[in-house]
């Protein structure tokens, strides 16, 4: 719902509530009918809602029934307007959902229908008074009856409720349309996501078909096409196996680490060569794919079927190579980390001596930064992301030269 519609609804609902309460008061307060008496006092006896209840006259009772209907309708209008007010508050504050929109829409429609019914019953009431000879509407001044006051207010109520419902219906139709469009877009996005990661068979077929239009090889047989599709699928299978192997690495890492440490270091060298070979193989495969797209129909080759045992072997081999590579890297990183820690500890000690124990150094990323951290550091302002030099020895507090934000150095090791 738009904010302008909510503002309009807010205004309308308050007016509807006010008018409906006013009408309720007027029903109990105003004299509705006047009956000509032929007893000892020959005058018009005025009846209000309460007096009509005690009357024994059947015609007055008929009129009372209509008036009671109007009275009940006004009560329901008051209650529904209060409920819709709560719905609007909840909708604006928390749940901007389709359910609450439907609830507001239905409540507004019910309000309008009830107001229309009130209008209809009032017309019936005035008609029945006209039909009965002995009963007339009690008059304020001769052309103007007391009942007209309430009638005018009920017309106002009908108009405002009409505006209220019209605005909400207009907005809700827009919303429903937008919901549908959003749903479609979401579905499309999901489909795109699903399809973008792994190419479907139809896409592969299309990719094969595309160059056929341009190439001169138009009379190739169907078997050749199928063979090529199978090749591409086989490549895809090998990719999937690699992905699975990557997922399994963390589980087997710990066990294989222990084995690898105990095993000879010579193996690492040979396996390194293997990894290099593999990377070369990957590049070759990629080149092959490109060649396939360029020249989709080379010579016929027998179908290559990957069996389960082959897949397992491949995955085991791949895992071994990966684990060894990781270990080697870790062994290289360890001495570096030790040197870093030593430098950081020295710096901490110097800072502790010079300043309070709360102040600490900024984050260190590289060895080059360590050299800088002797006296001058680079600091990035979180407000304006301005990077500026900072003398560690001089200042405890830092003020950004660009935006003037004050701050302290945080401990991050």
């Amino acid at each position, binding site marked *: 719902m738009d*904010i302008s519609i*909510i*503002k309009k609804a*807010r205004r309308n609902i*308050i007016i509807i*509530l*006010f008018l409906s*309460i006013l009408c*309720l*008061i007027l029903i*109990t*307060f*105003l*004299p509705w009918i006047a*009956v000509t*008496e032929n*007893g*000892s*006092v020959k*005058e018009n*006896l*005025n*009846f*209000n*809602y*309460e*007096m009509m209840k*005690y*009357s*024994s*006259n059947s015609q*007055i009772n008929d009129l009372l029934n209509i008036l009671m209907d109007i009275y009940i309708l006004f009560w329901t209008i*008051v*209650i529904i307007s*209060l*409920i819709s*007010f*709560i719905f*609007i*508050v*909840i909708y*604006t*504050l*928390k749940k901007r959902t389709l359910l609450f929109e439907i609830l507001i829409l239905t409540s507004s429609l019910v309000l309008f229908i009830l107001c229309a019914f009130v209008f209809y019953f009032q017309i019936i009431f005035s008609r029945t008074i006209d039909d009965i000879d002995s009963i007339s509407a*009690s008059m304020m001044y001769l052309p103007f009856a007391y009942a007209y006051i309430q009638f005018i207010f009920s017309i106002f109520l009908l108009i405002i409720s009409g505006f209220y419902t019209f605005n909400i219906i207009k907005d809700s139709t827009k919303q429903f349309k937008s919901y549908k469009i959003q749903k479609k877009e979401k579905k499309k996005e999901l489909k795109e996501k699903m399809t973008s990661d792994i190419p479907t068979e139809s896409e592969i077929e299309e990719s094969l078909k595309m160059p056929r239009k341009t190439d001169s090889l138009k009379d190739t047989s169907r078997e050749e096409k199928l063979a090529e599709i199978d090749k591409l699928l086989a490549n895809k299978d090998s990719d999937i196996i690699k992905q699975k192997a990557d997922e399994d690495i963390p589980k087997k890492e710990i066990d294989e680490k222990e084995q690898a440490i105990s095993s000879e270091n010579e193996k690492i060298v040979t396996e390194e060569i293997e990894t290099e070979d593999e990377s070369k193989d990957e590049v070759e495969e990629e080149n092959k794919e490109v060649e396939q797209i360029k020249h989709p129909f080379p010579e016929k080759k027998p179908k290559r079927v990957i069996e389960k045992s082959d897949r397992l072997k491949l995955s085991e081999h791949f895992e071994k190579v990966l684990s060894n590579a990781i270990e080697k890297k870790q062994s290289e990183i360890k001495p570096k980390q030790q040197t870093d820690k030593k430098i950081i500890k020295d710096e901490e000690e110097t800072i502790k001596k010079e300043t309070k124990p709360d102040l*600490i150094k*900024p*984050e260190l*990323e590289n060895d080059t930064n360590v050299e800088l951290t002797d006296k001058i550091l*680079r*600091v*990035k302002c*979180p*407000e304006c992301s301005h990077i500026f030099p900072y003398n560690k020895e001089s200042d405890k507090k*830092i003020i950004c030269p660009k935006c003037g934000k004050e*701050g*302290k*150095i*945080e401990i*991050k090791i």
Partner: protein
Amino acid sequence: MVDEEKEDKKEEESEKKEEKKIYKNKDKILDESFKQAQQLKTGKPKKSVLPITLKKPFIKIGLLIVIIALIGLFIINFVPFLYINYETEDSSIEQYISYQEFKYDQLEPEKIYSLFESTCIDCSENSDSYIGLTINDFIDTPKFTIYVFYIMIIIGAIFTIFMLVNRKRNFSENTIIIVHSIFTAFIIITGIIILILNMKFLAANLLQQLNKPFLMGLGFKRVQLLFFMPYFQILISFILFIIGLILMKLNLNNAVDKYNLVFSEKNNLRYKFGSKI
């Protein structure tokens, strides 16, 4: 000689005092200049401001409603229900009648009954009461209004308890506004019930004027009726009704303001120097 020595000593002392004064002045000037230099270097010295501690606002509308209900109950029990002043051919009566007298059927001049329920056979075939009131109305309406006031006390107490709990539990502003709006809806409904229950007494005054010939036909020369207690009840219900409408507007305004507000993520984050460069 002694006098000369004394004078010399005095002069020496005075010189020393002057020197001390000069040193003091110099120190003062130095301190001031040093402070000024420091200020120029670091900026203006900040005044030590105590941290502002804001207490959560406690909405006292629940208490107000309870107080209004208690006042209403007090009015029912202690304010006279009816002031009646009438003149017949035989006598004239000026009397204040309370709710208790109606309740326990203690009305003394029986002529008063004929005001509300006429026993005149020739008067009218259509209705017995000419001002739209019966004796039952004088008994039932205060009874129902008492029940409504009890409900009001309960609602007000629940709301105040909720607000007290909110101080400790920190409900979100949205939930507070929703609870507030439900509370206002209850206030409006109770206000309308009280208003409609007591409106017939106000309408009786209008009918008293319109149906005056019929009252004269009963034998009354002059009739004056004032319903004190119902007037106060109507006043209370109007107050409730106005409070309800104002609260309703406030709640809707708050909701619309909240709808307009969009909190940035920056407000929820704390930044410190020394983050990743």
